[in-house]
């Protein structure tokens, strides 16, 4: 069992497991964010719960970060190995004849998503950590000294999307996310060895997921931008 991560199939299985985990996280992230469109109050309450509940903060959050790091590092490890597997390239290669653009460019869509995550951490995660753990303000209020000032989460989110460039960057990133998912979803299932009578249906579901979720994020960003 220990050697499994040294084998090609073990690695691709691990890649798939981390992907499936990240896709579940993404769905969860989206479900909460979309609340911000319909009900700022519910959004605030859920955000506050997620931001302060110990199991989320001290168990799920580290796992998630590890998952993200693992997925990226393993992605690079595999990419390097795969590049070494063909040292001289074809003078003419007609990749589109046999495979989708998405499947051939996972490393690029992945890198775009990585860049986005850096931005996203800079935008939300770093300030959040700063407020909660460095300043020690666990209240979640706009003004920690004023109980009536209300939760800060929706305000912060809404405010961030005032900047048009940020909205554009986010939307572009979501497009890459969609491209990544369009191949990644069904690929993850194939890697785990799942290829049976349910695969067709699952592929359809995967396509829907890969389009609807990123599109939803785009919608949320645009919503906040244009409701200013």
């Amino acid at each position, binding site marked *: *069992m220990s050697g*499994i991560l040294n*084998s*090609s*199939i*073990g*690695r*691709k*299985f691990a890649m798939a497991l981390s992907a499936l985990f990240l896709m579940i996280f993404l769905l969860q992230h989206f479900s909460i964010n979309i609340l911000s469109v319909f009900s700022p109050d519910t959004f605030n309450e859920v955000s506050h719960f997620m931001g302060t509940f110990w199991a989320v903060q001290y168990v799920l959050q580290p796992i998630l970060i590890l998952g993200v790091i693992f997925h990226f590092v393993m992605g690079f490890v*595999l990419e390097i*190995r*795969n*590049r*070494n*597997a*063909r*040292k*001289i*390239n*074809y*003078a*003419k*290669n*007609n*990749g589109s*004849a*046999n*495979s*989708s653009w998405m*499947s*051939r460019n*996972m490393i690029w869509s992945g890198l775009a998503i990585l860049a986005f995550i850096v931005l996203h951490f800079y935008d939300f995660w770093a300030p959040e950590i700063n407020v909660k753990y460095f300043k020690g303000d666990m209240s979640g209020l706009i003004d920690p000294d004023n109980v009536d000032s209300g939760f800060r989460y929706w305000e912060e989110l809404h405010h961030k999307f005032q900047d048009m460039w940020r909205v554009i960057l986010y939307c572009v990133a979501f497009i890459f996310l969609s491209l990544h998912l369009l*191949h990644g979803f*069904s*690929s993850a299932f*194939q*890697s*785990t*060895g*799942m*290829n049976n009578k349910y695969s067709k249906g699952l592929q359809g579901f995967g396509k829907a997921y890969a389009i609807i979720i990123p599109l939803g994020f785009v919608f949320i960003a645009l919503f906040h931008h244009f409701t200013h």
Partner: protein
Amino acid sequence: MNLTLKIWRQANANDKGKMVDYKISDISPDMSFLEMLDVLNNELIEKGEQPVAFDHDCREGICGSCSLYINGEAHGPDRGVTTCQLHMRMFKDGDTITIEPFRATAFPVIKDLIVDRTSFDRIQHAGGFISVNTSGNTIDANAIPVNKHNADDAFSAATCIGCGACVASCKNSSAMLFVGAKVSQFALLPQGQVEATDRVLNMVKQMDEEGFGNCTNTGACEVECPKGISLENIARMNREYLKASLKG
């Protein structure tokens, strides 16, 4: 038809190699691609030049000798055929055709368009068999009935001709379709069960040692495979491998 050919020429494994242009005329659309190369070679020989070396033998699509990356695709633009069964009617008068060897670190070039695919053999040495000695008294062939669907699937997997188009087409030069097909054939038959664990572990280990890349499920192999070997075989190998790893 008159054609321009851009062909990879490389004198031997240590030579650097380069693309060379050739003009060829009066090609009949009924010729096979290799017959077209025969015509070119005959011209080269009679001119005192070195003919283009390429692998070929049965010329009926079953031995798996012929290879060639033609216009950016393994075995050329047609589907479900090897290069020897690719016909010139797939091309138009005046076309330029780029012809390269199958590229992969695990398939080093021997000369021109010929590559060394013995890495495939070594993967099979590691476990591509059922350990049964030859004797006149193995159990009767009908003693173990085999579910027809499994038998048919095992056969479909077994029709792999080991040409290496999967590796050549894969952007990662992965050999998983080839290995998956072999693992599947035995995994689907009751006779293959006894050694299933060791077989998949050993074959995958050898595959990794040969320097093939990792599968990223682009599906290019399945599309370019002249025998239509299905991606299901890779999924089945993944399952078999994970099962075997858990068993130890």
